[in-house]
């Protein structure tokens, strides 16, 4: 299956219709999530009143930040084992977008934290610090790749960092259970099922799906750009050698 997707030409064909489809679906789902989150769902006084509406952007950003890091680590693993170039292109494309959604998670978390907990940031909070660490892993991944003088070295060094850094993802997920944190315990993905009321849960899930589709569409667009850039580099060599 990996080999089927590893063909850049096949990827370009697939993404030429899949990416626009994902953009359109994401626009609809995010718009519906915004309408529900800002206008329709009742405020929850137990969660501080209207401020809980920040959840509909903060939580999808947080889930996507973790999922994108895992995606980058899996693509790095695929490249590391099978040397499929499309997997490396995918990992490279995920990094800046993963950093963006992680930064969004940190920023909206700080804005939500101030009226809720009375602080923008808590340095000894395991959840906050492990997400901040993941943000630096994304930046480190990009910096490491940029510092290498060949594409192969960049792919290898990036893959190792991405795979080792993936150990941080379960730490983020379980940090609220293992350490003291200002964050509440997990309320959606729990062994007993979601503890959140359906009126909040569905808009949250739909909004998260919208963010995920937008993210996937942007990754596909960046991957297409990278494939075109590499082809242009090869063509430039052909032009210079006159082949």
């Amino acid at each position, binding site marked *: 299956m990996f080999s089927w997707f590893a063909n850049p030409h096949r990827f370009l064909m697939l993404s030429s219709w899949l990416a626009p489809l994902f953009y359109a679906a994401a626009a609809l789902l995010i718009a519906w999530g*915004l309408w529900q989150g*800002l*206008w329709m769902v009742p*405020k929850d006084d137990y969660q*501080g*009143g*209207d*401020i809980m*509406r*920040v959840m509909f*952007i*903060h939580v999808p*950003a947080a889930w996507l930040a973790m999922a994108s890091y895992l995606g980058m680590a899996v693509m790095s693993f695929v490249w590391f084992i099978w040397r499929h170039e499309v997997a490396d292109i995918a990992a490279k494309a995920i990094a*800046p*977008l993963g950093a*963006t*959604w992680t*930064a*969004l998670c940190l*920023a*909206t978390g700080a*804005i*939500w934290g*101030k*009226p809720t907990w009375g602080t923008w940031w808590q340095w000894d909070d395991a959840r906050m610090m492990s997400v901040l660490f993941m943000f630096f892993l994304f930046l480190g991944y990009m910096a490491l790749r940029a510092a290498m003088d060949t594409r192969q070295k960049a792919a290898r060094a990036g893959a190792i960092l991405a795979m080792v850094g993936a150990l941080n993802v379960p730490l983020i997920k379980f940090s609220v259970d293992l350490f003291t944190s200002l964050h509440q315990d997990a309320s959606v993905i729990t062994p007993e099922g979601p503890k959140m009321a359906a009126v909040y849960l569905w808009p949250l899930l739909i909004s998260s799906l919208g963010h995920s589709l*937008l993210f996937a569409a*942007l990754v596909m*667009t*960046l991957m*297409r*750009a*990278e494939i*075109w*850039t590499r*082809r*242009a580099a090869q*063509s*430039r060599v*052909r*032009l210079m050698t*006159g082949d």
Partner: protein
Amino acid sequence: MLPDFDSNAAFIWASYSVGLLFIGGAMASVWLKARAAKTELIRIEARIRDQKRG
């Protein structure tokens, strides 16, 4: 018609504004990068065709 929030309205709008800024910025940079890459490839391929024609 904008929704009417309690005393934390500024924080709520700040969160969604940051979201718009980050996501909008990411979309714009990705689309510009893709367009530049496609334009460059087309330009080089056209030069190769011209070179072959002599």
